[in-house]
């Protein structure tokens, strides 16, 4: 025998000893071994080395050589390769290459291969320990959520409490900033958003799906009764039956209809983690079966993506500018912060809990003035104080233009910057001065649009020009939410960008921000964000290929179907069989111009919907459309993989119960987004990388998404490919190894303690402030790897992403695309909202509804579900035993309608009728109604899609029409409604008069 053969023979014998030894030591493993009875043959291709393992009722019988009738065979090309692949330290590239190159192969039933390979990979994990004993039977685990990390106290297998993480002395120090004669430092702990504080109540919610279910009147081999979705009840079935049905439906529609017949649809952010999350496990599975993808629109950034980007680039940030060093610059230099459509205290920086909150508390002490521009006296304004200016919804661009007008006529803008770094200013200047259309965009002119007194706009403009001013536009400071999601969102974001260019953005104290992004943390430390692709293998639609694919070799995955459906037009795609849109593609500015249509050439129409993740009725415009699209045989099969029985889950044929991230392993970073929100960790006061412990066992028969995809995959022969023979914990360890963590902390310690705080940058090595390089005409010096090299017109790293490399008041990209588009001309112009005070329907529906990102839930997450947030009166109000969604209405509008505090009211228009609890408030101008956007509960009182909803899905009222014809974006903040006392009726209500055809088909 060759020496390699001898060695590999010994290794295989050693494997047997390890299995037996571990079974003796770990009763759980012994129990695991009893799960299956079968024989696995391991061998080299030439059979020179071979050993079989027979698992029989928990015993392992093994022998050298070939078994007569093994159930599965694992074959390595050579003993040499076997030695390397079955050693303790495997070269990951070699492992992946061996699989790709058919040098490591498995034959036999896929579920047995998965079980066998996972069993072998489990061995090194068995002695791993995690959690901290707190005494009294309580163990402290760690998890991470989209509202911040948590210590999870567990006793007797049950979650006792969730707390923020208070750092100890062994954790890295906290940064401080010297400004205005004082050192400022944030609290040494993580913070938590309310939608995380309530999570114990949602883990143990009575709405948890605990068992696989089948709609009672759904028969895959007979009557499907699709029109009964949303009405019919469910019956409990076994996992085997559920997965068998789903697998056979996948095969059926592919066989019968071809490419693209399966559409997968995921919500945004229903849990958290780099492995078992949507841009990871779910993407790999969906790619593996080949699916029509739902093309999300940049729903929180619209105006920045479709508009502002054309002035300065930043396509890889969806049109938001770079975000470095801004906390320190603001604190040291700024004299004023203008919060424009910005409510960071409500939206928690999306994924960053209340990390920015303590920093904004410093503003007052530092003597920095603040101004708030928002139709609603939002929570940031209420907390921080300062002048509140309330323009009518979607008129903000007019106010912005009037500010620019004052600067031009006062001669108080940065003429040097405009001359040296910008292009096309004269054209915009002439438009503002009225030389183009005869209308000067004066403060008086804007008053008739916005309702804001001209004198206040002049005062603001002059104060702004005379002080070093930060613009906090949107809740991130450089975009996100609010006015960018209205019919004039493109104009607003563009105007904001132009204002900042006029004041010389990048100059000390002049920039975008509101102390939300740009803390002095160390971005050199590598840990991937969730958009970096995790285990997806997806090199085309995640950021995996940028660096994680190198750091964490894995089998690649590709979606064979290139068919896409715009998320805002799923109902049209299903019901009318056609849809078209413009994509969310941030690689270049021109990505968004590439119109696509459904069905795509050679592709099938949708025959099956695989819905994964959270409920989304509450987040989709004109949502009754989505309800209707379920209740039709044009969609013959729907599977929903969900944690809770809510929203669309009630419209499925088969329900697969997933567990929460408290019930599975994962790994992630606090606010670690990656991808389009690169370096999102700078919203945080500390970079915290979290081990997401499996704190409790999955409730009922629920399983992790990873496990569900593996088991379903096995029924398609794809399970081994999906999981690569590894468990979730193996993947977590792989991601640990792929990051910079091992340079700082051992796996053992990280796993046990559950988190690592990345030391901040030394004070003299902090990242420079954003845009300073551009202001000073230097090479780009912030750690941002975009724009892509090919997008520089001058030397690499010189200038912006625009064609000229300058800030373009007149946008080259829009000139190329459609210079005559009235909605998006090359210079930004004012066009009143197509659903607002100047619309025909305003007479019938005289109230303008704004529906910002919600405060106490995250999208639909942690709303409903009998969550503890139900008891927050700002969120829902208990009336006659039911928790109604809250809608705010001005005192005068309420008085005129006889509405008192917490009366039940009907908010309606031609699209829908929604019952809400009225909150009568002085925080709104008359004529404006405010209600948060994302109810998790859809509760029709009659026929679904055709009756009054009392769950509070406000988005049923919002228009499906895209912001502009040549983009695909939501204008949810442009919505006309009427509100009146509810008479208890379940029948849809409309205002008298002719229904105007508002919707313009694309």
């Amino acid at each position, binding site marked *: 025998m060759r020496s390699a053969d001898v060695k590999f023979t010994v290794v295989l014998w050693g494997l047997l000893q390890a299995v037996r030894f571990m079974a003796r030591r770990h009763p759980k493993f012994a129990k695991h071994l009893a799960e299956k009875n079968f024989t696995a043959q391991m061998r080299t291709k030439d059979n020179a080395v071979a050993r079989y393992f027979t698992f029989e009722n928990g015993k392992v019988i093994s022998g050298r050589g070939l078994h007569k009738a093994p159930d599965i065979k694992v074959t390595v090309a050579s003993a040499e390769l076997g030695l390397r692949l079955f050693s303790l330290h495997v070269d990951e590239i070699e492992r992946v290459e061996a699989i790709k190159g058919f040098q490591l192969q498995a034959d036999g039933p896929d579920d047995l291969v998965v079980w066998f390979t996972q069993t072998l990979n489990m061995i090194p994990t068995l002695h791993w320990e995690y959690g901290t004993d707190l*005494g*009294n039977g309580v163990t402290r685990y760690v998890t991470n959520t989209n509202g911040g990390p948590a210590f999870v106290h567990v006793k007797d297998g*049950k*979650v*006792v*409490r*969730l*707390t*923020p993480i*208070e750092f100890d002395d062994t954790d890295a120090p906290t940064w401080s900033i010297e400004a205005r004669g004082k050192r400022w430092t944030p*609290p040494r*702990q993580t*913070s*938590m958003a*309310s939608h995380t*504080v*309530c999570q*114990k*109540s949602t883990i*143990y919610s009575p709405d948890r799906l605990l068992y696989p279910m089948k709609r009672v009147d759904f028969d895959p081999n007979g009557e499907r009764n699709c029109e009964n979705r949303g009405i019919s009840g469910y019956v409990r079935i076994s996992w085997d039956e559920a997965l068998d049905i789903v697998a056979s439906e996948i095969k059926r529609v592919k066989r019968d209809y071809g490419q693209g017949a399966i559409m997968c649809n995921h919500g945004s952010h229903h849990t958290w983690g780099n492995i078992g999350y949507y841009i990871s496990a779910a993407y790999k599975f969906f790619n593996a079966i080949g699916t029509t993808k739902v093309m999300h629109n940049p729903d929180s950034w619209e105006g920045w993506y479709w508009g502002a980007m054309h002035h300065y680039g930043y396509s890889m940030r969806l049109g938001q500018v770079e975000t470095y060093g801004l906390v320190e610059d603001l604190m040291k230099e700024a004299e004023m912060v203008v919060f424009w459509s910005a409510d960071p*205290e409500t939206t928690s920086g999306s994924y960053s*809990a*209340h990390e920015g*909150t*303590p920093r904004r*508390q410093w503003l007052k002490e530092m003597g920095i*003035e603040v101004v708030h521009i928002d139709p609603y*006296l939002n*929570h940031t304004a*209420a*907390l921080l104080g300062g*002048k*509140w*200016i*309330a323009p009518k919804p979607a008129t903000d661009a007019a106010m912005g233009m009037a500010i620019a007008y004052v600067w031009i006529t006062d001669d108080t803008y940065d003429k040097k910057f405009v001359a040296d770094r910008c292009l096309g200013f004269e054209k915009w200047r002439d438009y503002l001065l009225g030389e183009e259309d005869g209308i000067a965009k004066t403060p008086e002119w804007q008053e008739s649009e916005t309702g804001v*007194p*001209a*004198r*206040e706009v*002049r*005062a*603001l403009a002059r*104060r702004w020009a005379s002080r070093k001013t930060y613009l906090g536009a949107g809740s991130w400071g450089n975009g996100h939410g609010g006015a960018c999601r209205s019919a004039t969102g493109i104009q607003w974001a563009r105007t904001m960008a132009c204002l900042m260019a006029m004041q010389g953005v990048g100059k000390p104290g002049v920039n975008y921000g509101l102390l939300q992004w740009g803390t002095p943390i160390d971005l050199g430390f590598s840990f991937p964000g969730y958009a970096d692709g995790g285990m997806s293998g997806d090199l085309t639609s995640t950021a995996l290929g940028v660096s994680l694919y190198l750091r964490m070799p894995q089998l690649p995955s590709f979606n064979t179907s290139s068919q896409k459906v715009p998320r805002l037009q799923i109902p049209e795609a299903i019901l009318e069989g056609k849809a078209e849109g413009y994509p969310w593609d941030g690689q270049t500015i021109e990505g968004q111009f590439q119109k696509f249509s459904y069905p795509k050439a050679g592709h099938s129409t949708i025959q099956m919907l695989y819905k994964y993740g959270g409920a989304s009725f509450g987040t989709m415009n004109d949502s009754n459309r989505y309800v209707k699209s379920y209740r039709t045989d044009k969609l013959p099969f729907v599977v929903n993989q969900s944690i809770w029985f809510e929203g669309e889950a009630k419209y499925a044929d088969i329900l697969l119960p997933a567990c929460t991230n408290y019930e599975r392993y994962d790994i992630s970073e606090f606010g670690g987004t990656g991808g389009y929100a690169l370096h999102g960790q700078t919203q945080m006061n500390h970079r915290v990388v979290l081990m997401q412990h499996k704190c409790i066992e999955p409730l009922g028969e629920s399983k992790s998404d990873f496990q569900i995809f593996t088991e379903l995959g096995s029924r398609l022969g794809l399970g081994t490919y999906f999981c690569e023979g590894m468990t979730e914990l193996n993947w977590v360890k792989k991601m640990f190894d792929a990051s910079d963590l091992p340079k700082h902390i051992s796996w053992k310690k990280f796993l046990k303690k559950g988190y690592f705080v990345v030391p901040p940058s030394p004070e003299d090595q902090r990242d420079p402030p954003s845009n300073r390089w551009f202001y000073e005409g230097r090479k780009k010096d912030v750690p941002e790897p975009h724009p892509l090299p090919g997008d520089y017109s001058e030397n690499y790293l010189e200038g912006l992403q625009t064609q000229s490399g300058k800030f373009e008041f007149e946008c080259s990209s829009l000139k190329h695309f459609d210079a005559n588009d009235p909605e998006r001309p090359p210079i930004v112009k004012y066009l009143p909202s197509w659903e607002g005070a100047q619309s025909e329907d305003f007479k019938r529906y005289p109230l303008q509804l704004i529906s910002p990102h919600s405060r*106490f839930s995250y999208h639909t997450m942690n709303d409903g579900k*009998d969550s*503890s*947030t*139900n*008891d*927050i*009166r*700002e969120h829902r109000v*208990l009336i006659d035993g039911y928790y109604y969604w809250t809608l705010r209405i*001005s005192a005068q509008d309420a008085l005129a309608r006889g509405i008192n505090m917490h009366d039940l009211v009907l908010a309606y228009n031609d699209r829908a009728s929604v019952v809400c609890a009225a909150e009568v*408030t*002085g*925080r*709104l*101008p008359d004529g404006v109604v405010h209600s948060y956007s994302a109810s998790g509960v859809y509760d029709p009182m009659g026929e679904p899609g055709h009756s009054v909803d009392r769950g509070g899905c406000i988005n049923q009222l919002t228009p499906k029409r895209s912001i502009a014809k040549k983009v695909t974006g939501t204008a949810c903040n442009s919505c006309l409604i009427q509100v009146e006392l509810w008479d208890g009726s379940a029948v849809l209500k409309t205002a008298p008069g002719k229904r105007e055809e508002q919707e313009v088909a694309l």
Partner: protein
Amino acid sequence: MKKWNLVIDVAKCFNCNGCALSCHDEYYGNEFPGYAAEMQKHGQRWIDIRARETGQKPMVEVSYLPVMCNHCDNPPCLKAAKDGAVVKRDDGIVIIHPEKARGQRQIVEACPYQAVFWNEEKQLPQAWPFDAHLLDQGWTKTRGSQMCPTQAMRTLHVTDAEMQQLVERDGLEVLSPELGTRPRVYYRNLVRFFSVFIGGALTKTVKGVEECADGVHVKLLQQGSVVAEQTSDTFGEFRFSNLKPGSGAYQLQILDRPRLDVHLKEQSIYLGAIEASA
């Protein structure tokens, strides 16, 4: 000896509900024998946050007031309780005993702060027990304090004498001091929740154009004497805050204009735009 106190800054509370939700997290689904029986899932806001708006657009003030068991040094609930069902601990914390208090509804009614809740299922009066079970295990702050993102809610473990110094230094107040209950929950900027303001926006005409009149001196007078003075801001706005609701007749002196009479009732008054130079 050191005792437990809570200090809440009303000016820093923005209704995030971190304290209220973490209180729910702590007491729903858990029981702590000797301290607290399990809380009912809904309707039991042991830490509740009351909201208040005052003023008129565009000058509106919003305040929030977290209210919970005050752990009074002279607790009315203790007097109302039978069989030693309410205990005042040496460290200041008041505990409604989860067994002994069963059936004693009068404990709920005795609390002038509506901070004791009736658990219908268990027939038990319940209130926020200052997270005493955690403090007894070595915690140094309550769940609400730990969660509070603005540090509006702070847990202080100090002697009564030290606490009194802080009360004087920071102008801390308690709810309804006239009741003589002597709460251990103190408030900073409490006046914000209960007071009203008189405000307005000054304008001037410059070359025929209306402008905000900034830097204008405004005096507030009561019965002929000046009680406060201010200078209008960038937007010409002035705001005399912390006035007592219903405090009656005031006059405003704006430059050499005739004095403006303002009658303050229960609500704040925003006078709207006022031509300063007229």
